[in-house]
């Protein structure tokens, strides 16, 4: 008895579960039926649609009366027919044309900024920070009185147009005599290099580099002081291009730096040469042999060179034209192993630093 009761309860529970699922199926199929109706199945598949719709109703009725088996049969019929109805509606139903509502184009508002306030927005203004008229793209008008293309504010000659002859064309000033040699450019064979009119405005060479132009140099191949450019002949020295060669050595007191009077004649000729070449600058270089301590020799050679410079200054040569350097034994010209060699190494040289 108890066993039968349990079986009945189980069957009842199973029936509830089955009915619930069938109701869900019925609801789902009814939605499909509605969809088929919207697809035009009433015209394209009237019988299938009718069978589907009616069988869903019948299934509901059977479920309500407690007969899920029959309800299931109706749902099966409904499912088959609604599927057919939907399929048939695809090819039969009139094409549904959906006319989309035309969207109004969205207006994009762009804020135009005009930093310099010239009425031209920055985006179109080539000079957004400087006011200027539209015809100049928003840039300030440049004043150019002489019309040479160089604005007045940087034109050194705002009233005279630049001649653009390749000579200082950036300053805005015309350059009728580029090289300033007194010969106007149109008559100057060398407008950018100064030269005398005798040479058609072209520079005259100076082969011997003595500072006297060749056209004035009576000895163009031998350096010599102005005015004739011919070398002076000194008995104890010889002026060469890079040094004044002494034929005798400057003599100093032994182990001291004082110049001995017997060397005054030699130094006086140095003074004469420097007067003959007023732009000449000379380096007085003192050298010793290698005997004794190097530090002492360095100091001694320096002081001896300075003594020579001092003498020359006392004779009127400007200090600015003279320089004293003591090299000690570092630049020997002969062997320090012999007396003769050491005598040659003890020397004072006069190197010409420049002639101009």
């Amino acid at each position: 008895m108890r066993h039968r009761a349990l079986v009945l309860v189980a069957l009842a529970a199973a029936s509830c579960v089955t009915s619930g699922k069938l109701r869900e199926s019925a609801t789902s199929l009814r939605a499909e039926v509605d969809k088929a109706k919207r697809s035009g199945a009433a015209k394209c598949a009237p019988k299938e649609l009718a069978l589907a719709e009616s069988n869903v109703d019948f299934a509901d009725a059977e479920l309500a009366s407690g007969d899920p088996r029959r309800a299931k049969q109706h749902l099966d019929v409904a499912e088959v027919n609604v599927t057919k109805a939907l399929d048939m509606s695809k090819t039969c139903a009139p094409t549904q044309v959906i006319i989309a509502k035309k969207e109004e184009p969205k207006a994009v508002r762009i804020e135009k900024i005009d930093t310099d306030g010239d009425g031209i927005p920055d985006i179109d203004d080539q000079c957004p920070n400087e006011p200027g008229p539209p015809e100049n793209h928003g840039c300030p008008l440049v004043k150019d009185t002489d019309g040479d293309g160089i604005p007045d504010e940087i034109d050194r000659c705002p009233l005279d147009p630049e001649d653009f002859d390749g000579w200082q064309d950036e300053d805005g000033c015309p350059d009728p005599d580029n090289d300033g040699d007194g010969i106007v450019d149109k008559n100057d064979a060398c407008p950018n290099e100064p030269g005398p009119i005798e040479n058609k405005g072209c520079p005259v060479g100076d082969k011997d580099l003595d500072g006297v132009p060749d056209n004035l140099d009576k000895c163009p191949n031998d350096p010599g002081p102005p005015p004739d450019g011919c070398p002076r002949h000194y008995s104890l020295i010889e002026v060469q291009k890079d040094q004044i060669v002494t034929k005798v050595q400057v003599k100093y007191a032994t182990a001291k730096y004082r110049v001995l009077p017997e060397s005054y004649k030699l130094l006086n000729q140095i003074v004469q040469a420097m007067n003959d070449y007023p732009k000449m600058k000379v380096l007085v270089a003192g050298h010793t042999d290698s005997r004794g301590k190097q530090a002492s020799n360095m100091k001694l050679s320096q002081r001896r060179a300075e003594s020579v410079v001092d003498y020359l200054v006392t004779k009127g040569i400007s200090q600015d034209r003279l320089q004293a350097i003591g090299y000690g034994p570092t630049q020997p010209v002969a062997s320090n192993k012999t007396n003769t060699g050491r005598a040659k190494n003890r020397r004072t040289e006069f190197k010409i630093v420049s002639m101009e």
Partner: protein
Amino acid sequence: MRLLSALLVLGTLVGCGPVQSTATLIDAEVALEAARTAGARENAAYEYALAEAYLTKAKETVNRARYESATEFAHKAKELANEARKKAASASNSSGATP
């Protein structure tokens, strides 16, 4: 006497179900025939098919002695048949054809 009256009432109630459903079924069948005559098979195919399905279900339900449901189905079948007939008639009138 009382017992006889009660049995009579009960018998009437039990016997009314089949009578009512049968009458409704007949009405539905007549209506469906009228619709068919009006050309509803062609011009109101959906409504006609529905009516036909409900009538079939009504008959099946009667056979199971579920008269109340059968009556409802038959009634629905009749309504649908009438609707199909009207629609078919309307379609025939608009096309100028005689049923």
